[in-house]
């Protein structure tokens, strides 16, 4: 029975992926990509990875879809959206088939000649779990055992937003698209947005002893912000520029301060003091949640900011 379910799900995932690549209309591709995120979330549950499923449900099925749909609408509005791309040439098709077949064969070879693992990582995790300050393994790995990696990853997120801000043409002009003036939508928002915020905090709190944590909570928060933005309530216009910058950097800063304070105290980088680990992890996670939410929101709004009206330079390309 399980085998049947897994195989059906697998066939579904592959069929959806193939359709999203090969379908004629770009809109259909985007819709299938959203569905892929949804089916992958089911797949992660089957694989026994509920944390990833939570993140995938919020990000793959929610945020990525909105980002792609928004860009698609934008390209359609401004341009003629190149009626359809010129059909790629024959050698190109051959090259594509050849390289993807090679990749698949190599990967299959790797899977069927799998070496036995040298270290039983899960035993190490179980052994060290009582000292980590939390009782959920993934949170322990993310924010205690391998917190160095997580710190750098948050750094990457901040870097992405900085690059986006540098590309933004006009700092002060915000997204000019009006929201939806639909009364039912606005009535539902008063119910939905608080529910989203509560769920986000629930996920954050759940992270200490069962699946959940800062990344999922941050994604949920970002989804709530984006929903508000889409329906015309622009958070970035309500907050001052400085407040926004402060929020973006808060998570990284708190993490960095905690990391370096242990060096000042004479311990190695990112070693939590005895007994205080749980509290510090919660503090870092709270800051991270807010920052991830704001980072994803500002990547969304940066993409939305209108181009310079004068189009200075470079506009002679066509």
């Amino acid at each position, binding site marked *: 029975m399980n085998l049947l379910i897994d195989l059906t799900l697998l066939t579904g995932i592959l069929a959806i992926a193939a359709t999203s690549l090969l379908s004629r209309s770009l809109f259909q591709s985007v819709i299938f990509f959203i569905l892929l995120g949804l089916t992958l979330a089911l797949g992660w549950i089957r694989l026994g990875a509920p944390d990833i499923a939570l993140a995938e449900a919020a990000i793959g099925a929610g945020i990525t879809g909105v980002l792609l749909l928004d860009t698609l609408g934008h390209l359609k509005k401004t341009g003629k959206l190149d009626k359809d791309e010129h059909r790629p040439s024959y050698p190109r098709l051959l090259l594509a088939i050849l390289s993807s077949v090679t990749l698949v064969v190599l990967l299959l070879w790797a899977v069927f000649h799998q070496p036995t693992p040298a270290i039983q990582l899960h035993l190490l995790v179980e052994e060290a779990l009582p000292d980590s300050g939390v009782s959920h393994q993934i949170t322990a790995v993310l924010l205690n055992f391998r917190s160095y990696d997580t710190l750098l990853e948050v750094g990457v997120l901040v870097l992405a937003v900085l690059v986006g801000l540098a590309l933004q043409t006009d700092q002060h002009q915000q997204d000019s698209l009006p929201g*939806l003036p*639909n009364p*039912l*939508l606005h009535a*539902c928002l008063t*119910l*939905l947005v608080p*529910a989203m915020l509560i769920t986000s905090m629930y996920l954050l709190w759940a992270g200490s002893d069962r699946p959940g944590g800062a990344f999922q909570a941050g994604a949920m928060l970002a989804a709530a912000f984006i929903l508000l933005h889409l329906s015309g309530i622009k958070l970035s216009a309500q907050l001052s520029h400085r407040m926004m910058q402060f929020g973006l950097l808060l998570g990284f800063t708190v993490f960095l301060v905690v990391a370096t304070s242990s060096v000042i105290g004479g311990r190695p980088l990112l070693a939590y003091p005895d007994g205080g680990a749980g509290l510090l992890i919660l503090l870092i996670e709270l800051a991270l949640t807010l920052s991830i939410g704001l980072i994803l929101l500002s990547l969304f709004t940066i993409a939305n900011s209108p181009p310079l009206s004068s189009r200075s330079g470079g506009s002679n390309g066509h």
Partner: protein
Amino acid sequence: MTALVILQSLLLISGALMFVVGSIGLLRFPDTYTRIHALTKADNVGLGLIIIGLIPANFSLLVTLKLLLIWLLVMLASALSGHLVAWEARAKQVPLAPSEGESNDELTD
């Protein structure tokens, strides 16, 4: 106990069948407006039946409340998205499918 299991099975399977009915409705109905109808009715009933069928699986108040909350949210979401699509379809004057036995000269697009 067995009666409960039978009841549960009936609820779950009829819920799943409601989903199939919804899908078939989506496939068979002629225009956007009627498809909204297929989407927002059959699915919510189907999910509701499945959720009621799952409640006896673990008699826990919190789990029951969470399941009911999920159902409520899905109903809200499909009502909202159905409304939005219909609202915008009307603004864009998406044509209705002509009903049977009715002259439909001005409605075809």
